[in-house]
């Protein structure tokens, strides 16, 4: 099945556009694409007429061009007829926005359109979904364009069973500076499911990380999903909802009692090298770090800070995430000490974590980072930066980024996110170095690098 027309359409019809109701989902979708996206869009309604002076075509057959994508936003009972027209008219694929299918008891109607599409090898997303958000080409979310918070273009593809959760994630992506390649809301996922999108994004050159919000898989669907993810050369992240359900049934077998739905889900994901985000916030952190570093790294972390307290807190959180903070040998400590400025040499601590003290200057951080980047027994650097120290300048982010560019060892920075320190943060972000809001988040990011390798 060719999914390209769904994500990169040149022409699109919106079926169900009303002559006078501007808030109708079909009208919202028609409008935003007509005025703001590159796709050429046509309105369709069997009643015909005009909407904002533009023609509403009575039938698909009247459209003067070949149609790549049909967005269907009619009442559920009309959807089978529209889909039949799409198939006959050789439309490339469809997004069924309409609700009123399996989610409200009309499994029969859903099966009807699914069987029809499967037989004709016709790809469709939905029903009961928001569809595809792929600016500047197309955006089928029925949210007025002035209300949507747009993340920057980037490497993460986001797939969600829930449209609402997906829009929330776009807002977070935007506020955290995580770039998006494409977002898809799959709703009832009658035909196109997570696994189809995983296969598509594995090949998509614009996507470097694939993230999913999943409520549950069908029978044996999880098995196929993890086996596909194992072959995907890009990091795969999953946020699972419904973790607290299940496992409540009384069972005779010890195994059945301990291997609850979620326990199995979580274990199998880990077995196949898929990262599980345990909260919404963690999903964002993982997306951010993996859009910077797609290669898995080990679990040995070196910590550099200007405060002993920050280092100590980070060590505790690392331990909780099974990350190592290996103590440096005497000779390593001596070498590092020799790099430090005269005034901190006798007051700083050069074990791991390194505490450069409040008297440290930019050069101390840069020197340590460069030295540790060259150590083969360190997998990742955690830089806990306190922009309020008198010897730290706003240029430090950019200077440390240069170290990464030259040495290639993944680094994760923590900088308090307030406007006053924006320049320091930008120094990292412009160079694709992830910047965390908290020490906890920085450690979560380090955990993301360490994901287990597929078996």
């Amino acid at each position, binding site marked *: 099945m060719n999914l390209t027309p769904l994500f990169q359409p040149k022409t699109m019809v919106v079926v169900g556009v009303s002559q006078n109701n501007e808030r109708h989902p079909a009208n919202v979708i028609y409008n935003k694409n007509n005025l703001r996206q590159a796709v050429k869009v046509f309105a369709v309604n069997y009643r015909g007429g005009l909407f904002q002076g533009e023609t509403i075509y009575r039938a698909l057959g009247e459209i003067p061009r070949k149609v790549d994508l049909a967005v269907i936003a009619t009442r559920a009972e009309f959807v089978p007829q529209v889909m039949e027209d799409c198939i006959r008219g050789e439309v490339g694929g469809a997004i069924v926005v309409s609700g009123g299918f399996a989610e409200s008891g009309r499994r029969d109607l859903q099966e009807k359109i699914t069987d029809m599409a499967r037989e004709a090898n016709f790809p469709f997303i939905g029903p009961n979904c928001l569809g595809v958000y792929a600016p500047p080409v197309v955006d089928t979310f029925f949210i007025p364009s002035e209300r949507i918070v747009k993340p920057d273009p980037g490497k993460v593809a986001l797939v969600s069973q829930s449209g609402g959760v997906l829009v929330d994630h776009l807002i977070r992506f935007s506020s955290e500076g995580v770039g998006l390649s494409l977002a898809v809301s799959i709703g009832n996922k009658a035909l196109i499911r997570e696994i189809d999108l995983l296969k598509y994004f594995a090949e998509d050159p614009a996507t470097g990380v694939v993230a999913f919000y999943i409520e549950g898989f069908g029978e044996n669907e999880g098995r196929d999903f993890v086996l596909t993810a194992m072959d995907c050369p890009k990091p795969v992240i999953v946020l699972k909802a419904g973790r607290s359900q299940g496992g409540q049934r009384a069972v005779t*077998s010890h195994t059945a009692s*301990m291997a609850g739905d979620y326990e199995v889900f979580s274990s199998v994901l880990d077995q196949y090298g898929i990262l599980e985000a345990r909260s919404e916030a963690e999903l964002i952190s993982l997306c951010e770090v993996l859009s910077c570093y797609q290669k898995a790294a080990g679990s040995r972390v070196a910590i550099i800070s200007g405060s002993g307290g920050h280092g100590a807190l980070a060590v505790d959180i690392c331990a909780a995430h099974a990350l190592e903070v290996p103590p440096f040998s005497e000779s390593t400590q001596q070498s590092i000490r020799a790099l430090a400025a005269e005034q901190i040499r006798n007051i700083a601590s050069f074990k791991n974590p390194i505490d450069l003290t409040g008297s440290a200057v930019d050069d101390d951080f840069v020197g340590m980072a460069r030295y540790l980047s060259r150590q083969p027994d360190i997998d990742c650097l955690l830089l806990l930066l306190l922009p309020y120290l008198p010897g730290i300048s706003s240029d430090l982010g950019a200077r440390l980024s240069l170290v990464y560019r030259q040495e290639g060892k993944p680094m994760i920075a923590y900088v308090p996110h307030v406007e006053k320190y924006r320049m320091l943060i930008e120094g990292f972000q412009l160079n694709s170095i992830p910047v965390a809001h908290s020490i906890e988040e920085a450690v979560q990011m380090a955990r993301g690098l360490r994901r287990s390798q597929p078996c």
Partner: protein
Amino acid sequence: MLTAAMEKILTDARETGWVMEPEAKRFFSLGGLDTPRFFWAKKEEEALQVAMEIGYPVVAKVVSPRTPHKSEVKGVRLGVQDSQELTTAFQEFSRIEGFAGMLVEEMHSGVELIVGAKIDFQFGPVILLGMGGTSVEIYKDVAMRMAPLKAKDVVSMVQSLQGRPLLEGYRGQEPIGMDKLSQLLISFSQIVMEIQPVMETIDLNPVFCTFSRALVADARIFLKKKPCGGLPLSLRLPLVEFQK
């Protein structure tokens, strides 16, 4: 590959819905897993004779299709020292609901593990390994992986257990034979892949692990209520008949 004898054990159990211990253990023994010597005695004299052959002390367990948890009905005696104790045990067991004989078995010890399997709705056959015994569900120190297992999966399962030091020789104890455990888990997962259309869950609990052996000391197989296709015809047909 399932042997005809293994298939018969499964088909014979379809009425009760589960394969109880002596038969489940024989099933895995036929499948190449290591088990202690055991005998299902239906009469007291048989039990006494077998115990003589095995040599005291022995283990005595009740056989009853109505009791999946034998220890909960006081149906297990460890370290039975002589014929008198064995006779008493037999008489007491005979009053347990569904009594169908007594299992007389070689006495063994070692690190107690649980090895289990479940057909998960989303992921299909899944294998569980954990610290075993009767307190498994209290500590819940378990690891799970999708079957079939590879040697690498076994290593990571053992590594993730809290009780790992006990397996590696805690405080001067002999470590368990990792190769033996690995062999057991991999063969077990292959059997599970074969019988997945008819099984629901399996508990091997405890599995006694020592340096030289990994022994299945107790086993039970719960069968699926509605089996589906994919099994050899000989096994599938009677099950279909049963559904009617």
